[in-house]
């Protein structure tokens, strides 16, 4: 059981917390403490909005150990609106509906379980961005009829 390994990255994984470079303003994810743009030290925490779009994607049919129970599942490179690319799973989506450029948003989900007895590892995934749909006028009548 790899407890400490997951614990130490909880802020990144639960909240999409990365860094912002105090020198040039570049937003950094995953955090790496050195700015990839100006190479200055960059340790200032920055919580990303979680909004982005699909840069590329693939659906996995043959999973690594620990992920077998989730197949088929879709993974993606997501371009965050603040700039960085992030690698993550897509969730709440059917593979045939995914396209490059699809707007997505971050959700916190179960990444994997360390068996029946071990830890549950939570982390970021992305799903198609939800928007408030138009009201559904018939719902009350329908529910009443069913009751």
């Amino acid at each position, binding site marked *: 059981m790899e407890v400490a390994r997951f614990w130490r990255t909880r802020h990144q994984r639960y909240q999409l917390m990365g860094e912002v470079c105090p020198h040039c303003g570049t937003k950094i994810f995953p955090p790496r403490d050195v700015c990839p743009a100006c190479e200055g030290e960059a340790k200032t925490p920055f919580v990303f909005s979680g909004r982005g779009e699909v840069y590329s994607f693939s659906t996995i049919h043959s999973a690594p150990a620990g992920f077998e129970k989730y197949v088929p599942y879709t993974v993606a490179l997501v371009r965050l609106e603040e700039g960085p690319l992030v690698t993550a799973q897509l969730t709440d989506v059917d593979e045939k509906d995914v396209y490059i450029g699809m707007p997505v948003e971050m*959700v916190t*989900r*179960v990444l994997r379980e360390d068996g029946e007895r071990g830890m549950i590892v939570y982390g970021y995934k992305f799903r198609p961005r939800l928007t408030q749909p138009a009201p559904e006028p018939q719902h009350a009548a329908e*529910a009443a009829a069913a009751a």
Partner: protein
Amino acid sequence: MALMKSERPVGIVGYGAYVPRYRLITQEVSEIWTGGNTVSPVREKAVPGLDEDVATMSIEAARNAVRRAEQVCASFTPQRLGAVWVGSESHPYAVKPTGTIVAEALGATPYTQAADWQFACKAGTEAMQAAIGFVGSGMTSFALVIGADSAQGRPGDALEYTAGAGAAAFILGPAEEALVEIEGSVSYVTDTPDFWRRPHERFPEHAGRFTGEPAYFHHIASAAQTLMREMGLTPQDFAFAVFHQPNVKFPLKVGADLGFTRAQIQPGLLVNEIGNAYAGSALLGLTAVLDISQPGQRILLASFGSGAGSDAFCLRVRRSAPQSGALTTRAYIQRRVPVNYAQYSRLKGNYVMH
């Protein structure tokens, strides 16, 4: 006096709902287990995805609550949450708090009081009553309470027709900055074992029809009647009434017995579309009502927890809820992907893999 009120008025400054997107048309349960001879008590129920549990559903409901609270109350930030309390009977761990996961995801750590509450389906409302005291005493400015469940029902059991999923989150704070003032509440509890689950058992047991009159109806009616009597209110003073909803029939009947009309109950009656979300059940009814309620309107909320007890609340709307940045309860209900019984069984982990 059974009525509980805090010294300092407390209200709801933000709320949020979450319902997973999968739906099982519950007549399928009847087809599989009774050859279609049982009429399902609800049309369909919400089913969590493979990567969802009470922690993840709580996080999304809580993020919606935070987004509304940030618009309603200028002084609110997640760091000011003095409590993150999750009521559920399906916490992901038997030992290890769900509240810490939610608090960390919101950025509410480390100076917060994280805890998990448990009292069957009223675990969320009892946390809300405790939070009224926590905020009302001035111990903290804001407290987050969540009712959430990924409800369990043994395959083929009566519970399987209705056991749904969802989460509702509420941020309590000073009433003067709130969307809704909590005017008072009552908790009515006796030792009435109508439903239980022993340690290490996967599925709950229940006492059949015993869960009706002596448990559900008696406790809700007693709590609600006492609340109205001691506050000097009648059903006509309320625009909406929301009850725990294990099926469609029970809340309509207890409401009618108390003198409420179907029109008062219907807007918060979600069970036909999402099933019984256990600790999230009555509280999701409340989020649905808050989405549409107008300033000045009163809402009666009465939960029921097997074992047994009911918490009844009198709420008065101060202002309409902001709807930008957070989806309405109805929007989550409309987001709907039907699954068949075989897919549902996979999502629920009901296949034996070893």
